[in-house]
C-alpha cells in the first residue's frame, strides 16, 4: 500500500519521472487519531461466514446420495427413483450449494496436496474425492447416475439422443484422460485449477458467471439433447477415473434381471452408447490376424510413450507462460528490454507502459534476478511435468489401441462397465424386466416366435 501511495503521490505532484526512476518519495506521516470528546471510535465488524456444519452436512448428503443411488440402481432397479434422486442432487449440490465442493474439482486439491507440501487440503475435500471412487469399486458408476449435479443436469436434457459412431465415440473418449492429465499437471505445479475454470455448468448453478462460460454451458446442454451426456463421456476427468474403477466393481447394473432374450431393445434405449452386443464366433483367420495386430500394438507401446514424452517436453515454453510467476518475469524482461509499448504521459513525453502486476512488482522492491531465478525454476518444473503429461497421453492412446484389439466374448447384451453410468434407462425396455414386474406373462413365447 505504501508503494501505491508513493506512486500516486508522485503522479499528483506531476513528477512522472520519479515514478519511472523509482525515486523514493518520503512517506507521508499518518494523520493522527483525533481526541474526540464524546464520539467513540467503532470497531470494524465482519459478517459471519457460512456455518461450519455445512461441510459435514454436504458430506452426509454425499454418503446418503451414493447409498441411495446404489440401492436404486442395483437392488430396486428403479429408473424413476434414480431420476428423482438426480433432481434432488441437482437442487442440493448444484443450485443450493452452488457446485463447490465437488469430487471432480477435488482431483486438483488432492493432486496439489500430494505434490506441494505447503498446501494442506481440508479432509472433507479428501472425503469428497475418495468416497465416490470407493463406491464405484463396489457398485459401478452410481455416483454419475444420480449424485453428480453435472451429470444430473445433462441427464435431464438427454431427450433426443442419436448414436455416436463407434470410432468417434472411442476417439473422443480419450479426451477425458487427456483432460485428467492436464488437470493434474496444472494443479500439481500450482499453475491453475483448469477443471474448475472450465466447469461448464457451474455458471448455471450460480445464475451468473462470465458470458463465455454461460455460452459454453448452454452449448453443452444443447449438444446434450442429441448426444447424451457429452461432458461426462468425453471430458469429465473424474468420469475417466470412475470408468477405470467400474471395470473391476464387485457388483454392477445388469440389464436383464433373469435371462437375456437378445432383443436389442436395451441397446437402442441407451442414450450413451454404453451397451455392448453379443460377439459372434471368429474364424481362424481373423483370430490369427487379430493376434498379430495385438502383438504389433504391444510393440508400439514404448514408441508411443517415447514420442509422447518428447512432444510433452516441447510444451515447456507454452506451458510455462500460463504460470503467473513466469508471466510476470517475461513482462519485466520485456519492459526492461524496452520492447513494451510506449504511451504518452503528456508531460515528460513517452514512458514505457506497465501492467498492474509489473508495477506492483517494482514497488515491492524485490530483486529482478530473484524473480528470474524463480521463473526459470518454474519453467524447468513445467518442462518435466509436460514430459510426464506427454508420456501419459501416449500411454492412454496405447492402452486404448491394445484394449480395442483384445477380444472379449459376450453371450448377451451387456453394459460396458466403463461407459455405463447406471442411469437405469434400459431397465424399462427389457422384456425380461417387464416379465419380472408382472407386466407380461410369457417371456419364452415371445422369444421363440420369429
Amino acid at each position, binding site marked *: *500500500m505504501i508503494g*501505491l*501511495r508513493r506512486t*500516486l*503521490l508522485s503522479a*499528483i505532484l506531476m513528477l512522472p519521472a520519479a515514478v519511472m526512476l523509482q525515486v523514493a518519495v518520503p512517506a507521508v506521516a*499518518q*494523520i*493522527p*487519531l*483525533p*481526541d*474526540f*470528546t464524546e464520539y467513540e*471510535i*467503532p*470497531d*470494524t465488524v*465482519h*459478517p*459471519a*461466514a*457460512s456455518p461450519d456444519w455445512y461441510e459435514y452436512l454436504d458430506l452426509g448428503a454425499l454418503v446418503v446420495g451414493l447409498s441411495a443411488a446404489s440401492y436404486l440402481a442395483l437392488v430396486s432397479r428403479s429408473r424413476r427413483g434414480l431420476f428423482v434422486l438426480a433432481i434432488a442432487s441437482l437442487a442440493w449440490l448444484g443450485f443450493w450449494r452452488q457446485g*463447490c*465442493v465437488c469430487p471432480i*474439482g*477435488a482431483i*486438483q*486439491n*488432492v493432486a496439489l496436496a*500430494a505434490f506441494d*507440501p505447503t*498446501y*494442506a*487440503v*481440508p*479432509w*472433507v475435500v*479428501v*472425503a469428497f474425492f*475418495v468416497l465416490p*471412487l*470407493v463406491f464405484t*469399486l*463396489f457398485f459401478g458408476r452410481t455416483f454419475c447416475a444420480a449424485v453428480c449435479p453435472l451429470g444430473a443436469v445433462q441427464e435431464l436434457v438427454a431427450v433426443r439422443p442419436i448414436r455416436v459412431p463407434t470410432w468417434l465415440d472411442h476417439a473422443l473418449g480419450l479426451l477425458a484422460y487427456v483432460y485428467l492429465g492436464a488437470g493434474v499437471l496444472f494443479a500439481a505445479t500450482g499453475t*491453475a*485449477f483448469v477443471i*474448475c475454470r472450465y466447469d461448464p455448468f*457451474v455458471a448455471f448453478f*450460480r445464475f*451468473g458467471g462470465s458470458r463465455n462460460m454461460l455460452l459454453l454451458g448452454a452449448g453443452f446442454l444443447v449438444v446434450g439433447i442429441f448426444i447424451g451426456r457429452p461432458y461426462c463421456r468425453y471430458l469429465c476427468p473424474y468420469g475417466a477415473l470412475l470408468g477405470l*474403477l467400474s*471395470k*473391476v*466393481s464387485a457388483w454392477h447394473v445388469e440389464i436383464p434381471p433373469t435371462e437375456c432374450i437378445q432383443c436389442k431393445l436395451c441397446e437402442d434405449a441407451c442414450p450413451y452408447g454404453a451397451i455392448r452386443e453379443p460377439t459372434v464366433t471368429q474364424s481362424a483367420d481373423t483370430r490369427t490376424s487379430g493376434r498379430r495386430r495385438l502383438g504389433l500394438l504391444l510393440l508400439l507401446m514404448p514408441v508411443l510413450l517415447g514420442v509422447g514424452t518428447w512432444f510433452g517436453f516441447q510444451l515447456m515454453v507454452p506451458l510455462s507462460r500460463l504460470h*503467473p510467476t513466469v508471466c510476470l518475469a517475461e513482462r519485466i524482461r520485456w519492459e526492461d528490454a524496452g520492447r513494451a509499448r510506449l504511451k504518452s504521459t503528456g508531460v515528460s513525453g513517452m514512458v514505457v507502459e506497465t*501492467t*498492474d502486476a509489473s508495477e*506492483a512488482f517494482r*514497488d515491492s522492491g524485490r530483486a529482478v534476478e530473484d524473480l528470474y531465478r524463480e521463473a526459470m525454476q518454474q519453467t524447468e518444473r513445467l518442462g518435466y511435468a509436460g514430459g510426464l503429461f506427454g508420456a501419459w497421453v501416449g500411454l492412454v492412446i496405447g492402452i486404448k489401441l491394445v484394449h480395442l484389439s483384445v477380444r472379449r466374448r459376450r453371450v448377451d447384451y451387456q453394459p460396458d462397465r466403463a461407459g455405463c453410468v447406471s442411469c437405469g434407462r434400459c431397465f424399462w425396455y427389457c422384456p425380461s424386466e417387464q416379465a419380472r414386474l408382472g407386466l407380461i406373462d410369457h417371456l419364452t413365447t415371445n422369444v421363440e416366435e420369429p
Partner: protein
Amino acid sequence: MAEQDKRLDRRGFMAGTVRVAGVVGLGGMAGVLGTQRSQSEEYVWQLDPDKCMACTNCQTHCVLDESAVKCVQFFLMCGFCDICTGYFPIENYELNTGAENHLCPTNALVRTFIEEQAGVRYFEYTIDEVNCIGCGKCVEGCALMNGSLYLQVRHDRCVNCNECSIAVACPTQAFRRVPASEPNLLMKKAQELLDQKAQQG
C-alpha cells in the same frame, strides 16, 4: 462350459485383486493426506490488504454478479479528515455530499459529521455494504493519506470457489487461502495498532 467357468473365474479373481488393491490404495491415500497434509478446517479465500493495489479486478472478476469483495474501514487508522481523499476526487469537487463530489460510484461511503475542535471539522466515514461493489476507488484514494480503507472478501457472500476467479485475475497475487476460523486479514500497520491498544489495556 467348464473352460468358460475357469476363464470367468480368472477374470473375477483379477478384478477382485485390483478391487482390493484399489480400496487399500484409496484408503491409504486418504489416510496419508488426512493425517500428513490436511487440516480439519475448511479454507476460505481472503486478500492481503498489504499486497492490494486497488486495481478494480475484485469488482469485475468475481463469479457473483455483485462481487463478494467489499470495502472495509479500519477506524483506528482513519484520520477522520474533512477533506478525505477516499471520499472526494482529487480535483474538481466542492466540499459537500452532492453526488457529483463523490469518488464512490455507488454512494457506499457515508460521511457523517462528528464534531469541530479548534476550527477543524471531523467526519466519520463508514461503508454501506449493501451499496459497495468492491471497486476499490476509495481504497486507492485513501492510500494517499492514512490508508484505513481496504478491501476484504466478505464471507457471507463468498461462495468459496475451488479456484477463485479474482485470485486468478489479481495482478499482485494478493489472494490466498486462509483457515475459516481466521477468515480476515489486516494490514501490518493495523495489526500493530491493535496490538498497541491491547497492551494499553
